[in-house]
């Protein structure tokens, strides 16, 4: 299980805005091995959700290549892509907005099966929907219920069942728990982990919640203003964060202890505007270690130790 299921190369998405180009995702490259989870973290507006949508081609990338299972899906036609969606699915952030209020639970879960004609008869469809509802922990009595009759956690389970219905290999989870309260968050996360083990799923898990990402990820990618600044195995990243932004991010995790005093790395300054950004490190304006040269040159992800990549010229060994 060490084959790369998804590989992304030089992915870019620029949006045209009033005064220029908004660099939402700027030259992002990564890969995810089959059966593993890549956690993507970063603050609001850093391009994590956009990256997730680009990977599924729900948004058209400005440039870059996306390889899924060895195929370059970035050149697929609309019809080819519709077919491809059987293998790659998404779970949305907002369980209130992401399901059609006029369809019943069973209709929502059955729709992907109908589109891809995965069941032969009405009975088979019915059974598959019941089975999916059982898998995600939705009671059978909700079969004909409408979404507005259910709470956020159950609605999110509908979203998960819908994504699972086509037996995908890969699921983009776009902050699937951030709209839920903490006790439900844990339930949904455990459900998603169980499903991953059972079905051998590969996740791209987008979140701004570091404790969630630590819980579920094999590798973690940290994004800042459309760029990936650090990519490392989960344990390595938490034990040995190298990029100043990652360090600041990790120092912001609350520690549940009265005695232990931690050092907060507080960032000052505003986030640079992503519209027509100047060359140079995007984080330089807020970075406590920034030097003159940081403002001049772009950084690229460099491997500092096996599997640990950082985009910071000050921290990467060849610059020290």
């Amino acid at each position, binding site marked *: 299980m060490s084959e790369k299921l998804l590989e992304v190369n030089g992915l870019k998405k620029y949006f045209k805005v009033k005064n220029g180009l908004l660099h939402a995702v700027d030259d992002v490259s990564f890969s995810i091995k089959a059966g593993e989870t890549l956690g993507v973290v970063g603050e609001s507006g850093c391009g994590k959700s956009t990256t997730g*949508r680009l990977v*599924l081609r*729900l948004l058209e990338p400005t440039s870059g290549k996306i390889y899924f299972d060895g195929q370059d899906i970035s050149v697929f036609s609309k019809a080819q892509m*519709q*077919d491809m*969606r*059987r293998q790659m*699915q*998404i779970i*949305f*952030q*907002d369980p209130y*907005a*992401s*399901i*059609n*209020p*006029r*369809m019943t639970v069973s209709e929502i879960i059955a*729709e*992907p099966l109908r*589109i*891809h004609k995965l069941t032969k008869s009405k*009975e088979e469809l019915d*059974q598959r929907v*019941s089975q999916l509802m059982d898998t995600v922990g939705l*009671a*059978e*009595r*909700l*079969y*004909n*219920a*409408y979404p*507005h009759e259910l709470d956020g956690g159950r609605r999110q389970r509908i*979203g998960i069942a*819908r*994504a699972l219905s*086509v037996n995908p290999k890969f699921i983009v989870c776009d902050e699937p728990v951030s709209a839920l309260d903490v006790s439900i968050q844990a339930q949904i996360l455990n459900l998603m982990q169980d499903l991953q083990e059972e079905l051998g799923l590969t996740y791209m898990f987008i979140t701004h919640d570091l404790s969630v990402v630590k819980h579920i990820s094999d590798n973690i990618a940290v994004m800042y203003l459309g760029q990936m600044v650090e990519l490392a195995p989960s344990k390595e990243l938490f034990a040995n964060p190298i990029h100043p932004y990652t360090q600041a991010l990790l120092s912001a995790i609350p520690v549940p202890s009265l005695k232990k005093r931690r050092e907060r790395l507080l960032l000052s300054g505003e986030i640079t505007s992503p519209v027509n950004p100047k060359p140079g490190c995007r984080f330089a304006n807020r970075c406590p270690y920034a030097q003159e040269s940081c403002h001049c040159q772009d950084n690229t992800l460099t491997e500092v130790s096996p599997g640990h990549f950082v985009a910071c010229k000050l921290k990467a060994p060849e610059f020290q």
Partner: protein
Amino acid sequence: MQGITSELHTGRAKKRSLWLDIGIRVIKNKAAMVGFVILAVLILLALFADVIADYDTVVIQQDLANMNQGPSLEHILGTDEFGRDIFARIIHGGRISLAVGLVSVCFSLVVGGILGALAGYYGGRFDNIIMRCMDIFLAIPSILLAMAIVTALGSSLLNLMIAVGISNIPSYARIVRASVLTIKDQEFIEAARAIGGNDFRIIMRHILPNTLAPVIVQATLGVAGAILSTASLSFIGLGIQPPAPEWGAMLSNGRTYLRSAWHVATFPGIFIMVTILSLNLLGDGLRDALDPKLKQ
């Protein structure tokens, strides 16, 4: 196997088809049922008009000795300026008025709805072309447009329906487009695309059902507007030709005698009003029934 399946089905809330469900909710709504019953009576009267009053001898036969008689046992709604029985003319006129009203609204609803949905969904240049065409239509007063169309096509019942229908297309296109715009950016549309749905499915299954509420309200009001447009066209001689009865024409003819014979204009007017009222009641009920959030 059978055992497992039946076990699976226990505890499930009762399964009903969507349309049956909507039907039940309309029936539970008293106001909607009042509207439905009145409309049904009007339609039945129009359908069986020939049985109730013979067209040649009662509806168009003039009887000048009995002109402008008030309601009596013989003529329950009185007679008009040519001595014809008003009730008989109303039920025969209902055939034309109801047909024109319903058919022309359906026509403009379907054409305007499709144009509006496509414009809203695809946006960009396509949207611009469609909506600017609609703006041109809107710039011409709809009665003038209808007049032009009837003049060009010749006045027949079908042409009248087409004319009234075409002149109302822009308002439906605008309403549908506006609701499509608010719905197409919602996450569940993206979700529908993510599960592999094509544009047709997304528009038909996800967008249009969510635009129904404003469209139904507009359509029920539109039937009233269409009946009145037909009346106006008849009034200037482009619609239904005399001596054929039509509600709007009867209303405008009776206007002249309002001081001496109030009933000539009043009764056709009441029928128009009751038709519109019942359509609005039914339309409101239908709109509520189509919204699953208001269940029970």
